[in-house]
């Protein structure tokens, strides 16, 4: 039953990915100034979004563990961080490539590059901490506390870093005034990309945790 649901989800993701690829490569027009490189953005933005989301979920499940003392929450938190690390690496690399192609340098400590880099450090630290804690309940507790503690950096990443560094990044898709500064086709494609990436993340976390359940039962 459970597996069947998973299969439907997988099929849905496959379909969505095909649609996304079609939109990105055949429908979206080359952007002003960016040309065909804009297509990278439809990979980069969703992946970056998931890296932030995965961190949020990891901390959230950590809080869940501390409240309920249920090892399932710990498994979810760990899985979220593991996949989050992959997504954050993909986001960093795709961002660097995009940056090189459009602005001429792989890395220039743009605010959002700084943010993603701090996120990368946090994921690395969290997973290192898990690796060196031999006792499972202690590991669960300690890593949940660290996930929540490192979450305190979020206000800084969002509010302070942008003041410290000059940014080359285009202003957010939905900017301060709430208006959407994007063509409808691009926006639709971006939304499909975001949904697709989020579903892939959800499927990965779900699969890795249900696999773990079987191990415990066996």
């Amino acid at each position: 039953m459970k597996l069947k649901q998973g299969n439907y989800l997988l099929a849905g993701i496959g379909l969505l990915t095909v649609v996304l690829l079609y939109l990105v490569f055949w429908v979206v027009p080359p952007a002003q100034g960016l040309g065909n490189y804009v297509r990278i953005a439809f990979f980069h933005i969703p992946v970056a979004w998931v890296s932030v989301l995965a961190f949020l979920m990891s901390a959230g499940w950590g809080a869940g563990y501390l409240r309920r003392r249920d090892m399932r929450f710990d498994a979810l938190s760990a899985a979220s961080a593991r996949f989050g690390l992959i997504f954050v690496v993909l986001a960093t690399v795709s961002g660097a490539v995009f940056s090189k192609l459009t602005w001429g340098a792989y890395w220039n400590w743009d605010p959002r590059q700084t943010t993603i880099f701090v996120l990368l450090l946090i994921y690395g630290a969290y997973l290192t901490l898990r690796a060196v804690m031999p006792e499972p309940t202690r590991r669960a507790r300690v890593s949940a506390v660290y996930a929540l503690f490192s979450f305190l950096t979020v206000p800084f990443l969002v509010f302070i870093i942008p003041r410290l560094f000059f940014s080359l990044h285009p202003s957010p898709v939905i900017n301060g005034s709430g208006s959407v500064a994007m063509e409808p086709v691009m926006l639709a494609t971006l939304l499909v990309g975001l949904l697709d990436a989020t579903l892939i993340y959800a499927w990965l976390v779900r699969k890795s945790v249900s696999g773990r359940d079987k191990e415990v039962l066996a």
Partner: protein
Amino acid sequence: MQQSSWQGIKLVFRKELVVGLRFKAAWAAMLMFSLTTLACVSMALQGGTLEPRLLAALLWVILFFASLAGADRVFADEDTAGTLLALRIYGPSQAVLMGKMLYTFFLMVALAAFITPLFVLLLDVTVTAPGLLTVALLLGCGGIAAAGTLIAALTTGASVHGGLFSILMLPVILPVFLPAISLSAAAFGGGDSAGSYLVGMGLYDLILAVGASLLFDYLWYED
């Protein structure tokens, strides 16, 4: 209740101080580390002058890594000596955390007071705003103490210790680190730095201390 918890904090702080002074390893490691690093930098430069921003970054790198040699011991030493169990049985969580945080802050301020004048002397730095530098140092030390104490508690029981503390510390302390460098650069005459950085640092220190306090109970009590 308020009275008794303050009493507990004082007791823990005094205990740390007495034990720390009788067993000088933590102090020696920290001070020697900072001195060695500073000497290396100074020798390598051969009297050449550096930009204020680079100087500020150097000062904080020295401070940060030297602090790692001292701050990560506040729980690890109790763990190796076996006294952590006694402390867990008799010590209320908040008194232990705050007492140790206060002691780490004291340790950090002592370190900064030791190394900063030497740094200014050896690298021939002109300090245009000593007051600003002092406040930046105090706020930076506060942040390291607040985050360091909780993270030191996290790392007890780890199978590998080398480097773990700094790996966990760096992302969390970066929000203190970066404005501290900006402010110190301004104090060394490198451009002006917004006063809002000071407020931001103070606020973040407070967030770290409150966050550590809220989370520490989960590490101290197992229920």
